[in-house]
């Protein structure tokens, strides 16, 4: 669409650094853009400004000691990363998790997914110039943080999951607060749709912008809402069910075209599905222990293991090589944002600089997760 206006008036192109300190990159990401006027000719995302060496750090830490690191990779969906790491170790060491703990983990992980999507919703619309929806979504997100604060004692980097269970049991107040939150968020969808989804300015900025079609998404290893917006119904929760997701009933929302509007709609529908999962899990929440008996230092048997979970941005995998000691020999985290970010090199050329913000926002990257 944008290409038809692109006439070679001049051969002169110039380079522009977007970032590393730019309000709409949501972290220290540098986009190296080659521009012809307002149009992008080449785009190169430069990463690594937030590299902390989490994978290397794991090699010198006990399995238990790496736990707080896992939620600091993706700070917006920390509990899901926590769950993924803990479940990987449980698979390695053959630890049975009590069913109550599994349900609590699922409830908290889905709450965390909604909070991540709500934050994305607010910041994406703010990048496009609408400030009001940001305040609304943060108001709702605040509710989730209060609920999770009650059980985990932390608002962002929850080290809530433990090997063999969770750190703290939930009480009746948590259950009623979660029920209230589910009702509250359901009553807010109309406001969100009136404010954003039906808004003519938003539709013009998101429709047919940054099309990531099926082939492109598969070629770059995109997962999560980007892949689903391109029409591929892949979700780790359905494809390789972990925890108690196989017992719960939910759908995978998909898009058709794979443009920014599709990605937006997929995420909004996912929030509704997460509410559905939370309701079912709360209903079935069994009584019993919240933590299995686990030795102080876990020593998984020799071998290599892989475990994947679905975070708010896509498939998260932990590949861990054990040499039989209480330290991992090697830990590799497969994070979704890395693949999702690389697709920019193909999507950005030919678009306007103004659309870059929309495309980058709709991909929903968390830069510390890319850099690790």
């Amino acid at each position: 669409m944008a290409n038809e206006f692109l006439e070679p008036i001049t051969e002169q192109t110039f380079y522009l650094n977007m970032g590393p300190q730019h309000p709409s990159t949501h972290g220290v990401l540098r986009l190296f853009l080659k521009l012809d006027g307002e149009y992008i000719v080449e785009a190169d995302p430069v990463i690594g400004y937030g590299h902390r060496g989490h994978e290397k750090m794991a090699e010198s830490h006990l399995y238990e000691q790496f736990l707080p690191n896992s939620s600091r990779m993706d700070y917006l969906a920390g509990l899901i990363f926590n769950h993924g790491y803990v479940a990987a170790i449980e698979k390695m060491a053959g630890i049975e998790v009590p069913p109550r703990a599994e349900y609590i983990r699922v409830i908290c992980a889905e709450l965390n997914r909604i909070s991540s999507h709500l934050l994305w919703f607010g910041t994406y619309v703010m990048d496009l110039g609408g400030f009001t929806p940001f305040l609304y979504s943060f108001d709702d997100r605040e509710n989730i943080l209060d609920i999770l604060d009650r059980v985990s004692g932390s608002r962002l980097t929850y080290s809530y999951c433990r090997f063999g269970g969770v750190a703290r049991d939930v009480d009746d107040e948590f259950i009623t607060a979660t029920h209230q939150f589910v009702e509250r968020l359901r009553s807010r969808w109309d406001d969100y749709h009136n404010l954003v989804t039906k808004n003519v300015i938003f539709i013009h900025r998101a429709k047919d912008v940054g099309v990531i079609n099926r082939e492109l998404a598969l070629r770059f290893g995109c997962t999560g809402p980007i892949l689903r917006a391109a029409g591929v119904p892949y979700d780790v929760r359905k494809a390789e069910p972990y925890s108690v997701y196989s017992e719960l009933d939910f759908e995978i929302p998909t898009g058709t075209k794979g443009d920014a509007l599709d990605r937006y709609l997929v995420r909004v529908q996912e929030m509704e599905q997460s509410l559905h999962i939370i309701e079912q899990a709360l209903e079935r929440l069994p009584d019993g222990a919240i933590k299995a008996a686990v030795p102080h230092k876990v020593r998984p048997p020799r071998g290599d293991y892989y475990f994947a979970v679905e975070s708010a941005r896509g498939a998260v995998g932990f590949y861990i090589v054990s040499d039989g000691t209480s330290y991992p020999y090697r830990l590799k985290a497969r994070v979704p944002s890395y693949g999702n970010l690389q697709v920019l090199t193909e999507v950005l050329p030919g678009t306007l600089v103004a659309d870059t913000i929309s495309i980058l926002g709709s991909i929903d990257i968390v830069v510390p997760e890319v850099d690790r």
Partner: protein
Amino acid sequence: MGMIKDIVEGGWSLIAGMWVTIRRIYRPVVTVQYPRECLDMSPAYRGHIEFEQFPETGSHNCVACGTCMRFCPTNVIKVQGEKTHTHSEKRASLYFIDFSHCSLCGLCVVNCPTQTLKFSGEYELAHYSRWDGVIDLIQRLEESA
């Protein structure tokens, strides 16, 4: 004709969005005017660690075994113990934490064999010097008692 339809529909969508905002004006205010008003912290809230005071002894039960020190991912804790006489149990004589490195993971609290560690409810922990983050837990317990 199509353009007029677009303008009417687009204009209506903007009015509908504005209506959401206007209705909001008449909702109750939820903002809390911190620091003049404070919210209660949740019971699970994690501040820095402190000693639990046991009613039987009126003091902590730290035996300076050093489990917390060894489990801490960032070497926050320094603990030393001494025996008062030859056959007595070891007790902590020094217990320092450097809160500026702490990630509040709770491994020390979980692994403490005598359950003498707990999270405090402290949340106003910004400080000017890096030494302000060093907290003497034994002194803290004596002051609170």
